[in-house]
Structures are given as C-alpha cells and as structure tokens.
C-alpha cells in the first residue's frame, strides 16, 4: 500500500516539476522526489537487506542533502530565480507530461511483469518519470534546470531498478550510484566552467557550434 502511495506522490511531483517556473521550486520538487524514491525500498519492505538500506541512505543523503546544497550554491552564484521563456510553455509541458504518462502506461501494458509482483505501478511510473526528465531537458533553457531534468530522468531509472534490486543488487546499485555521481558532480563542474566563461548558465550562449 505504502509503495503505491509513494509512487503516486512521485507522479504528482513529476507534474509539479514541469508546471513550475521557479528554478528553486523545480529543485525542491526534484529533491522531494529524490527523497520519496530514496525511502521507496524501505516502503517495499526490503529493509531486511543491509545493502539495500545502505542504498536508500545513500540515495536520500545525496538527493536530499548534497544536491540541494550544490544547487543552492550555483543559484546564488548565477542569481537566477525563474525560467524565463522556456522552449516549451508550461501548459504545453503539462499536456506533454500527461501524454508521456499515458504512453508509459501503454508501454508498461506491453511489458508483462513477473507473475506475483505486486508493484504493477512501478514500471509505468518509472517510464513516466523518465519522460518527465526528458521533457525538462528538452524544454528548458537554463543549464541548472536541465541538470534537474537529468536528475529526474535518473529517478525514473532508479525507480525501475527497485524492481530488480532484491535479486541483482550489484548491477542495480553500482549502476545507479555511478550514474548519480556523473549527473551531479561532472555536470556541476561544467556548469561552474560555463558560469565562469559566460557568467550566466543560460544555454542560449551555448549554441555557437552549428552547420
């Protein structure tokens, strides 16, 4: 019961993510989502596995504490509040997000789960989150928001990973943690470079190279 609730909240946070115009809000939602998903394994009653608890803790700390910290710093340095004129407007984004959710339901319908799994919402939710992340990446101009998008995309994968985490922990955990690391640190570094080079993180400056 609890997992489904968390999943529902995740979906909700997806919508609020694409709907918000404030970068800081977006970050908060991402963090919220991260924490929710971090608690997911415990909610799934996997608490008995120590390594899974570790994973959960790591996820919560990284997504709930480290990432917000980094983002706050970046925000202060580039002092931007809101995402002005995104490539795709908020209403349209919402519709697209809904569309993506519907699509992920369709897809999940074609991907039969192992008989006996009770988390039927897991796959559609993860796909929906994935698409949401993609949507953010595609529709926003600010490098920061794009990283948020990447983070959400990551959450989607993490969510799917939870399906497998009990049976093949090594694969899932290694993958997910490493991916987190890349997403955050490297991009953080580059964003820093960008800020220094362009003293702004608006990706409009990053469109010189073309044919």
């Amino acid at each position, binding site marked *: 019961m609890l997992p489904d609730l968390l999943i529902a909240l995740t979906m909700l946070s997806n919508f609020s993510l694409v709907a918000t115009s404030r970068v800081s809000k977006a970050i908060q939602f991402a963090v919220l989502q991260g924490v929710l998903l971090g608690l997911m394994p415990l909610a799934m009653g996997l608490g008995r596995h120590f390594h899974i608890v570790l994973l959960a803790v790591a996820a919560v700390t990284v997504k709930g504490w480290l990432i917000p910290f980094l983002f706050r710093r970046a925000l202060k340095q580039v002092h931007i509040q809101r995402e002005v004129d995104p490539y795709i407007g908020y209403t349209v984004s919402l519709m697209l997000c809904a569309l993506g959710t519907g699509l992920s339901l369709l897809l999940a319908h074609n991907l039969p789960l192992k008989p006996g799994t009770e988390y039927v919402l897991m796959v559609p939710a993860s796909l929906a989150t994935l698409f949401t992340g*993609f949507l953010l990446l595609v529709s926003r101009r600010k490098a920061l928001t794009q990283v948020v998008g*990447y983070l959400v995309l990551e959450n989607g994968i993490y969510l799917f990973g939870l399906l497998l985490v009990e049976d093949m922990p*090594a*694969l*899932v955990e290694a993958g997910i943690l*490493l991916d987190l690391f*890349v997403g955050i640190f490297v991009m953080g570094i580059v964003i820093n470079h960008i800020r220094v080079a362009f003293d702004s993180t608006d*990706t409009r400056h990053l469109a*010189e190279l073309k*044919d």
Partner: protein
Amino acid sequence: MAWLLILVPLLAAALAFAVSSPTLRAWILPAVGILHLGLLLVALGGWRALPATAWFGLDALGGWVLLVISVLFCICAFYAPAYLALRPERDHRVLSTCLLGFLGLASLLAQARHPGIAWVAMETTTLVTAPLIYFNHNRRSLEATWKYLVIGSVGIALALLGTLFIAYAAHMGGLEEPLRYTRLMENASLLSRPWLRAGFVLTLVGYGTKMGLAPLHTWKPDAYGETPGLVGALLAGGVTSCAFLALLRIYAVVAAAGEGAFARELLVAFGMLSMAWALVFMIRQTDIKRLLAYSSVEHMGILVFGIGIGGLAAKFALFHLAANALVKSVLFLSAGNIHRSYASKQLPFVTGALRRTPVSGWLFLLAFLAITGMPPFAPFLSEFSIASGALGTGHLAGGAAFLILLGSIFLAMSETVVKVVFGTPSAQRVRTPYKDAPATTAPLIAALALALVLGIWLPRPLQAMLDHASTTAEGLPSARLEVRP
C-alpha cells in the same frame, strides 16, 4: 594478464598526473601504448579456455576491438609528444592522464563478461573523455564539452535502463545473478521477449548515442571539431568502438534469443539513416574537422549496416572497425597538422595543402581516397565485402542504397577535399611556423601503411580471430563454445 591490461594504463595515468615535467609526461604515452600492445598480443597469443564464471577475459570479439583500440592508441601516442610540444601554452597534465585512463577503461570494457561492468566502463569512459574535448579551454570547446556530456550522459542513462530491462528479461526467465554473457547466451531462449526487445531498443539508443548514429550523433561534429586532431582520432576510432562493442554484446544476446530479425531491421535502418544524414552535412562542408566528424557518423552507419546484414557483411563490418579506425586516425591527425599550419580548419582559408604541408597534404588526400574505398586500402575491402554481402544475400535494395549513398558521400566529400589539398595556398592567410616533421608525420605514415597491408593481406591468426569475433557478435551457437583468450 587481464588485470595487467587494465591496471597498467590506469597506474600510468596516475603517474602522468604526478609527473611535473611536460616532456617526460608526454613520453609516458607511447611507452604505455607499446607496453599495452605487447601485453595484449601476449594475451591473445595463448589459448586458454575462458572459465564461464570469469568476470573478465578476452574473447575473440573483445580481443579484436581492444587490439584495434590499442593500435590506434599507439599511433596517437607516438604522435602526441611532437604535437604537445607544438602546444606549449596548454598544460597537458589532464590530457595525458585522461588518455591513459581511457586506455585502461577500454581494456576493462573489452574484457568485461558482464553487461553491468561493460556499462560501468562505458560510463567512466564518457567521464574521462570529457576533459579531452575541453583541452583548448575556450568557449567553443566548453560548449562542445557540455553538449557531449549532457547528450552522452542521457544516452548512457538509457543504456543503463536497457541493461536493467535485459536483466529483468533474464529475471523473468528465471536466471539470477551473475548474468555473465556466457550465461545469457547459453540460456538466451529463456529470456522474456518483450523485455528483451525493449531492452535492445534502449541500449541501441543509449550506446548508439555514444557511437554517434544519426540522429543521436549531434554532439559529434562539435566535439570532434573543437578538440585537437589527436583526441579526435581517439574518439572517432576508440570511444565509438567501445560503444559499438557494448552494443554488439547486447545484440549477440538478442540474436541468440531468436530476436535477431527484429534487431537487424533496426540496425539496417540506423545504418542507412546515419549515412544519409551524414551525407546531407558533408555537402559543401567548409570545416574539415566537422567533415571528418560526419564521415565518422557515416562509418558508424556502415558498421551497424554491416552487422544488420549479417554473415559476410557482419564479418567485414568488424574488419571495417579496424580499417576505419586506422584511416580515420590518419585523417584526423593530418587535418590537425594542416590546422596547425594554416591556423584555420576552414575553407576558403585552407587551400593548396599539398604545397604548404606536402606530407600532411598527401596523407590527407590518400587517407580520404582510402576511407572512400580506394583499393588496395583496407576500407575498400570492407566496403566492397559489405556491399557484396548485402547484394549477395538478396538485400538488393539495401545494397543499392548503400552504394548510392557511398557514391553521393564521395561526391560531397571530394569537393571539399580537392579544394583543401590542391590549388595554391591563399596569400592573405598568415603563415604559422609549423612545418611537417618526421615526428608529426611518421605515425600517420605507419597507420596508412598498416591500412594498406590489411587491405592486401590479413594474417591467418587475425582472420581466425575475425571469424570467431563475427560469429560471437552474431550470437551464433558455434561462437558460444568459442570463448577464448
């Protein structure tokens, strides 16, 4: 042995980071390159049956790809000291470290017997290559790096999801960890088809992004265009090969599971699309490095096309991996030299290269002719065999389209190349002190010579290896027993 192949470069990377003297650091690269190649040859020499439970080890396919990468690395490494000496203004501590790191991770990828490990290696490869693109530390290179990183990470994330899907397919089939390739191949028939297909689609998109298949290639022209030719060569020949290998591993499983037809359709489609897309951007392309980037897209297309056709074409697609890597390195490095000499990589400033930098000019021209399929260079052999493989197996339309695309691409590419190479250097362009020196041309000549030799004569062991590799890549039953160092 397996560990040595991985650790030697990594330790060397650490060493390179520690060493303070630039010249000394520059010479670590060739030393390690030779060492690595030697180790690899030794490893390939022995015939030990690889235990099914091994986490690491070279099979024919991995061995072949790693051999290509190692040779390519040697070429670039021997070119590096002279080049880096030409760029005293740039500190190359990070560059050397990352180059060596890449070699180590490539060895890891090539030897990984588990999709997860392969994925991890691929991911880290992305990480270490990003600073290479940023070598020039200017806005343009920063932009290129950013695009490379974001697109690459997204792709790699998709690849992760795909890998997880495959794992879930195995999970549904009742297979449990550890899901080594050997295991997956042997029990391929148990895997759940829907998840397998979905997993393949995701990995195709993911690793395809790293390979640079159109339309996932968009980072390529920027990245290759803004890095030194040295890095460009390594990216075009090395990183793409890694991604290709990772993709092939998954493809082998899919094919073994009996979903080959589905996968091959996708591969052929991607191949065609990549060639066509590359063609569009090669027409009247004024930037030689971007031209080469698109040519790389084209050749990635040729690779997957060949695999998609299968049989003879698949075998020679793997051969083309080597041919392309060698000739591309010549193209990138000679383009780099020309860039050095003209302080530009753009038409109409770069003309008459044969007169200003004769050796590099000739190398550029010959390599261009080679890459577009002039016998007796290796690419001719592979392109001819892929075409005849396609036509011979009844893919008349596919083969015809393949040849037509090759022809049009030649038309587009040759126009720029002829302008660059022939004629007289434009007068108003400032003349840089750069002159062709043995140090900056010998490695290229060696590479081209190697491509020539491969086109005429393929040593027996290599042929055998290629046969095993192609059967492995196609997930054929014979291959599953043939896992060997």
